[in-house]
């Protein structure tokens, strides 16, 4: 039972990270119907920038959590800038091109970001120093570490803020208008171009936070970490219903739990025939099942009121 609970906790933590990244996919898809495959690499950039700042501050004697916060403070604007430039340079010229063109461009941007990161930060695995308290709290037999609480709470707060932003503010109104019908929104005085830019920047800010979380959690960062993470988050977005914000959150959490449970119990269930080495397969197995049985996702692809 305690092991089950521990796997559940692991799954929720992993799922919170997936949710944050999945929101980036869903926001962009909701507003312009583009699957931004470079989004996972923005997560990587977030992790790398955080790490760079942490290294610069490592000798300064500041308390660990403050150093991490400084890193995040640098990573968020940096990633927002990356997101903005990505949209401005790579996607805007293709706004009215056939749908396949921006999709392929997105893959190109992803490869570009990975290679630039490889040139700057090298090919080696980078270690994330243990700056956050490592101690764990016992909880009904399972142990929950400080960083796990931080990840779940952090992504919960970010998602709540985003929900409020999209539902209650003028900007959110403009975003929803642009997603329903960009042309009509333009006629109503919504500046669609800047709304799209802001959407990219919002998604990238979430990605920066996710990048910090994932590298702090696993203690490691490297230039192609965004690829698999991005694909899994995309799966999460599809699982919940792409373009649907609650869907991304639910899909992320579910995927994290499925993966964690799968890796933890597959060996026992199949009596050793299949083991934890199939962990990465689950995400894509789920993707296939969803595409077969419920192509619009669990909560549906809410076209009418896409956020």
């Amino acid at each position, binding site marked *: 039972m305690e092991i089950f609970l521990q796997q559940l906790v692991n799954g929720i933590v992993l799922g919170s990270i997936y949710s944050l990244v999945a929101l980036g996919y869903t926001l962009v898809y909701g507003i312009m119907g583009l699957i931004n495959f470079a989004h996972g690499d923005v997560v990587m950039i977030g992790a790398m920038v955080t790490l760079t700042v942490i290294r610069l501050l490592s000798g300064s004697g500041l308390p660990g959590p403050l150093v991490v916060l400084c890193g995040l403070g640098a990573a968020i604007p940096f990633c927002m800038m990356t997101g903005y430039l990505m949209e401005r340079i790579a996607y805007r010229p293709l706004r009215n091109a056939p749908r396949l063109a921006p999709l392929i461009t997105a893959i190109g941007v992803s490869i570009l970001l990975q290679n630039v990161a490889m040139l700057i930060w090298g*090919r080696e695995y980078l270690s994330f120093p*243990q700056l956050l308290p*490592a101690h764990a709290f016992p909880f009904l037999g399972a142990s929950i570490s400080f960083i796990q609480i931080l990840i779940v709470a952090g992504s919960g707060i970010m998602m709540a803020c985003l929900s409020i932003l999209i539902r209650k503010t003028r900007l959110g109104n403009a975003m929803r208008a642009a997603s329903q019908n960009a042309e009509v929104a333009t006629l109503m005085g919504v500046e669609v171009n800047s709304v799209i830019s802001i959407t990219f920047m919002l998604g990238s800010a979430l990605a920066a936070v996710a990048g910090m979380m994932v590298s702090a959690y*696993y203690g490691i960062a490297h230039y192609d970490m965004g690829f698999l993470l991005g694909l899994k988050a995309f799966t999460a977005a599809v699982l919940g219903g792409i373009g649907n914000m609650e869907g991304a959150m639910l899909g992320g959490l579910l995927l994290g739990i499925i993966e964690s449970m*799968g890796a933890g119990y597959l060996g026992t269930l199949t009596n050793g025939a299949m083991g934890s080495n199939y*962990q990465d397969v689950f995400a894509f197995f789920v993707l296939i099942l969803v595409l077969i049985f419920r192509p619009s996702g669990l909560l549906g692809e809410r076209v009418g009121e896409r956020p």
Partner: protein
Amino acid sequence: MPRSFLILLAAILAGCAKHESGSELVIRIGSVAPLTGPQSHLGKDNDNGVRLAASELNASNLVIGGKKARIEILSEDDQADPRTATIVAQKFVDEGVNGVIGDLNSGTSIPASKIYSDAGIPQISPSATAIAYTSQGFATAFRVITNDRQQGEALAKFAVDDLKAKSIAVIDDRTAYGQGLADEFVKDARALGANIVDREYTNDHATDFTAILTSIKGKHPDLIFYGGMDAQSGPMMRQLRNLGSQSLFLGADGSKSPEFIRLAGQSAEGAYASSPGMPVDKMPGGPEFMKKFEAKYGKIQIYSPYSYDATMVMVEAMKKAGSAEPSKYLPWLSKVEWNGVTGPISFDAKGDIKRSTVTLYRVANGAWKAIN
């Protein structure tokens, strides 16, 4: 006038160059290791060992078969990928190299060894420890490092007899090296009376081990053994401690590197690992090698003394045979006896090193310390 002078000059220079290569025997040795990817630090380490040996040999007035000889190193990247390793092997064969030092991994050395064997080109791996590498019946496959049968036995004995581990969980990365070593370890540990409570798997690109570590933690093993490389075992060690598990952690030679400690951070304290052979400072030629190597390339990772020795042994066989022709010096490789940096080197009928030693290490105060 100036132009014709230049042409004349060029002609003279070209003549000189031609004259040079005519009197000098150029020996081309292929050096293959993962130079990119998560194991690139180890790959570069191996490659630097080969290069150090070559530059020393070249500076030492090398004469083979009465001819002045010069060694040229061709470095290739196998990305630790078996498929790429066979492409590199074919490339070396096509280029007609005289011998090959590599590959670093067992998973790459084994498929490549078939190609070298077919072409009759001697291959000495500085670091492939999987048993299968030398047991395929290839006359061209050699290694200068203790194999996994010897290492697995020493590890199991250490875990059960010295660390008194009764229940053990085993994880491997499903590569020829990791799986082979883990299988040997499991077999020997069972024979010594230990109970294997869990067997989990990951891969050599994974970073998330929380799920498998959690299910291991539920079985409360005294010790966790990992068969694989430091890029996984470092983060794994850290995640293990973050989960609140206090089980002992034992790795093999793939984990015994400064990289492991860097990646695991403070969690590395108390981890155990083995390494074939001796610690660099206890090797017969260790301190001297360390000085030479570090002046040129920086810190030794793991295997550079072995790749250095492998190169030296290969050239020694060429000297004895008086030829760098693979078919001429290959018979000499199994006869040659060489006092290398890592100790005396001679090969048995399979191509394994005759004298095998395994040393165990523990992390204390952020560094690997040999346990006597």
